[in-house]
């Protein structure tokens, strides 16, 4: 089977996908069919939380694709995530219809009270799910295409590229903060009611979103793995390590970079779109440069250029955040900062690199 | 002068140097030879401290070299011309030379004139960035730079690689001059037999990480060459 073929030589991926599969089946069962009093019951709160983690893991995979394999340290991937999120948010806003506080069937509440008279053109069409679904991929993809087309063609690389990706997300953040942009400014888009007819407050909808996130992560992972298994993947590594040599060999480095970048941006967009209905808000803060840096940090913690490392890093750090902010609310930054420092010093190849190292060590000494 | 005994070195799991013994007599020019990939550069890197040594001893004039840190080794009198030159690309030629000055005696911290006499091209290119020089020019700069630290032992890793013939001859002459007239002990890694024969007093052959032969240069006969230096 095709899927099995893709992960044939990928132990880490096999394990990761296996665990994901088990969780995806088990968690909904434990939520729906085990009574709340039973210790095995998984509360909806946890399901949603896990769903959120999975979307972030998909985002991390997208970053690993360009950073780990192509060597592009992107400090702006949060922008693609946020754009996907906004596209979904716009759809969800339009779904509110006349159930908003002002009862305007056409305009979202924030437009009503800022006295907007009609829906801006870029909001048109978002009442249709299929349109929004296309935009979720298309908007980040097109931005990545334009950005990448300019940057890669001019051979911007290294920190220069990193910083302009950062400038891109920073500019978008500032722009989206402007109320005139028509995306709700700082308050962003909230108060979502339902998604293709399912109420977002229903447990079943939440479970559906969780399962969808898991599927998206698995599919995203397989796509990336498939790409990297191919010769294209090896060209990526070649570009990462000796870009000009690859050029002298006849590879159009800018095209390779461009397409991988675009694919990665679209994956990030999908992640954002699944994230938004689960957390219930999208706001310009998602564009903030620090967010994008954090994503890179997840990947580094998990281990670069492995893909499953990105998943592990994202889950680990985000779980740590949830845990620390509740258990150590006053000092948790010490703990999180400490983790980052220690991982770098003690596990230079991230958690997965460490595990792989352990295994190798065992094999050798055995 | 330099006495290495029972040296073992690993790259991760792979054992690269096996019980290598090497004696460099004072005042002589020893040529280290061997096929590609047998570990010549690795051995030199051990001497310079860039590679960790698993076991064995390394004494310079009776002092334990293994105890010295990398940056102390030039201070005890080792000048190093690495394979691939390793010029500081963004420093000017002059600055490349000045880098070694702090190693020199406090009252003598300027670039010795004789370096420019040996390599006039360096004086010509004084203010050009090291990285912009052609390969051959960089090689000359690398030798000049190693001389700035006033070494007793000069270590050169394939210094003729990529150098025009008359300069190769010149470098040969210079090495000889440094060796014979200025009393510098020289350890030279070289693949080109004629050149090795011309400048070397002694030879020393590595094969697959082991020390397999050594002796006076005259003793390097066709048999040895055929056995260890041809493919």
């Amino acid at each position, binding site marked *: 089977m095709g899927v099995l073929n893709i992960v044939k030589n990928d132990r880490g991926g096999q394990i990761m996908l296996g665990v994901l599969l088990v969780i995806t089946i088990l968690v909904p069962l434990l939520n729906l069919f085990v009574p709340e009093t039973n210790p095995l019951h998984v509360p909806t709160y946890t399901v949603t939380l896990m769903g959120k983690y999975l979307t972030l893991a998909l985002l991390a995979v997208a970053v690993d694709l360009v950073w780990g394999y192509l060597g592009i*340290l992107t400090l702006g991937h949060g922008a693609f995530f946020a754009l996907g999120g906004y596209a979904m948010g716009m759809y969800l806003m339009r779904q509110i219809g006349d159930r908003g506080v002002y009862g305007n069937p056409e305009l979202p509440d924030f437009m009503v009270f800022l006295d907007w008279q009609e829906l801006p053109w870029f909001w048109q069409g978002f009442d249709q799910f299929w349109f929004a679904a296309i935009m979720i991929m298309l908007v980040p993809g097109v931005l990545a295409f334009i950005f990448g087309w*300019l*940057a890669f063609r*001019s051979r*911007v*690389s290294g*920190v*220069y590229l990193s*910083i*302009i990706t*950062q*400038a*891109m997300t*920073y*500019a978008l953040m*500032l722009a989206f903060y*402007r109320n005139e942009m028509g995306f709700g400014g700082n308050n962003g888009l909230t108060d979502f009611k339902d998604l293709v007819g399912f109420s977002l407050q229903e447990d079943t909808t939440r479970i559906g979103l969780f399962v969808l996130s898991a599927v998206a992560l698995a599919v995203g992972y397989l796509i990336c793995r498939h790409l990297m298994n191919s010769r294209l993947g090896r060209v990526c590594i070649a570009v990462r390590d000796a870009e000009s040599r690859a050029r002298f060999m006849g590879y159009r480095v800018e095209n390779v970079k461009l397409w991988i970048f675009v694919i990665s941006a679209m994956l990030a967009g999908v992640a954002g779109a699944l994230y938004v209905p689960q957390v219930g808000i999208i706001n310009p803060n998602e564009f903030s*440069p620090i967010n994008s*840096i*954090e994503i*890179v*940090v997840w990947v*580094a*913690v998990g281990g670069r250029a492995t893909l499953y490392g990105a998943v592990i890093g994202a889950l680990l750090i985000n779980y740590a955040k949830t845990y620390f902010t509740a258990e150590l609310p006053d*000092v948790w*930054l*010490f703990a*999180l*900062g*400490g*983790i*980052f*420092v220690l991982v*770098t*010093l003690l596990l*230079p190849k991230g958690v997965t690199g460490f595990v792989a190292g352990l295994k190798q060590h065992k094999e050798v000494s055995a | 002068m330099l006495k290495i005994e029972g040296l073992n070195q690993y790259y991760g799991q792979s054992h690269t140097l096996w019980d290598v013994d090497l004696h460099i007599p004072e005042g002589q020019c020893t040529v280290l030879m061997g096929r590609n990939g047998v570990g010549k550069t690795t051995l030199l890197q051990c001497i310079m*401290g*860039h590679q960790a040594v698993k076991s064995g001893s390394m004494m310079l004039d009776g002092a334990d070299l293994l105890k010295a840190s*990398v*940056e*102390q*080794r*030039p*201070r005890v009198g080792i000048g190093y011309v*690495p394979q691939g030159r*390793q010029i*500081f*690309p*963004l*420093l000017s030629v002059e*600055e490349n030379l*000045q*880098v*070694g000055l*702090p*190693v020199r005696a406090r009252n003598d911290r300027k670039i010795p004139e004789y370096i420019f006499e040996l390599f006039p091209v360096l004086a010509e290119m004084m203010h050009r960035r*090291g*990285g912009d020089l052609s390969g051959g020019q960089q090689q000359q700069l690398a030798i000049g*730079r190693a001389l700035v*630290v006033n070494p007793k032992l000069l270590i050169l890793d394939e210094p003729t690689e990529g150098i025009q013939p008359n300069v190769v001859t010149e470098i040969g002459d210079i090495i000889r001059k440094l060796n014979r007239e200025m009393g510098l002990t020289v350890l030279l890694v070289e693949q080109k037999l004629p050149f090795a024969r011309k400048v070397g007093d002694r030879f020393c052959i590595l094969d697959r990480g082991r020390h397999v032969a050594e002796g006076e240069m005259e003793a390097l006969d066709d048999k040895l060459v055929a056995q260890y230096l041809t493919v």
Partner: protein
Amino acid sequence: MSKAFDNKSRGLDLLVETSHPRTSEILQLLSDSQLYYHKKDKRLFIITHYVTGKVAKDLQGNEQVIKKKRDFKKVTLNNKMRGQINRIQAELGLNADNPQQREAAVRDLLKDITPGTVATLKTRFLIEESKNVREMINIALAINDLKSSDDVLLSNAIEQLDGSLEQESRSALVAFVSTAQSPLLKKQAQIALKGIEDKVQYYGWLETLYFGLSLGSVLVLAGIGLAITFGVMGVINMAHGELIMIGAYTTYVIQLLMPDHIEWSILVAIPAAFVVSGLVGIAIERGVIRFLYGRPLETLLATFGISLILQQAVRSLFSPLNRSVETPDWMSGLIQINPVFSLTLSRLYIILFCLVVFVALLLVLKKTALGLQVRAVSQNRAMARSMGIRSNRVDALTFGLGSGVAGIAGVALSQLTNVGPNMGQAYIIDSFMVVVFGGVGNLWGTLVAGLSLGVANKVLEPWAGAVLAKVLMLIFIILFIQKRPRGLFPQRGRAAEG
């Protein structure tokens, strides 16, 4: 409530009418809020420091020790009264000894010229010796004359006001143009007005340039430490902002330590911040970064962690609130070049300070042995060590230098903005932007990038607004990097490619 203020205000007028010799002293006390009254006997007291145990003097000079915190109450003012006091002081100031004071007094009077002031000014004019004050009085009188209907008087007044940049002159001329009867005079006034407008516009550009340079200096100061730790050493130092923050907190602590010498505290804070941030930098380098050379991307991860730790450390140590850092008197205020153009002193000092720091750093890197060693190590660590450079020491010193400079930037920023746990975050993005835009590894690039981004931002701001101006700057940077993929001052030649 406002009734009470109205009564006080009437009291002031009465006080002036009596022309009591101590009027101006009392006004001064009032505006310095040193006048108190005893809650019980309602007598007035002068209190310089309202602390129990200190003395309160009544107006006759009798002293009384403050026993309880609630015994006395300050004689409060509202803004209306402050305005009133200013005005009265201005009129009184007309006879001050200092000509500058007199000029300021006349200028204050321009705001509202009544027949009474005209008379006072005319009398003053007769005995006034200072040319500037006479000029100012002339302007005041001319403004008054614009209300007359005598053509000659009007024409002279317009001539007098021609070139005067006082806002009142302009308003008077504008008012005159809109009501003028004689077309000839109207024309004359229009020409005068045009001349003034041109001048104002010219100074407007100068002002924009000044604002831009001063914003630019802040950017340069914030970025220049990073130009060393990141630009030269290649450490993606996400904790740079926090090192700035540490410098700012050092300033705060120094002020706490020398509360009676706030004037000099800044001068002490500069070396102190350099040392404190420098030491923290050295600690970071020795503790973490030195294990990461050759793995630049991982420095991002580790220093990001360090920045979180430092932020939280400051929050735990100093509380999450902003700290108040005072501006010494010699740094506050402005140099009034003319009524439409002035230079704020604090900004001027910061521009100068930025240049001094820049030159000092340039000399260190270009002219000292340390500078050469730093560059050698950053280009080829192994080879540098083989040439006898103690790379450990060089790394620690360099990182310490960059961090110390960040600390110095913190001192400067403490004069302009928040000193709080978040301040580092506010500058880190801009700092990277400046360093990269200028060309990594090039100090000149950082200077030019910072200043030009500052000026461009200030040129854009008036017509685009602060938010859009910033967005446009970022887009500009993105597009500029397409044209010059290695910044303003790129490393050129073969060396840069290999």
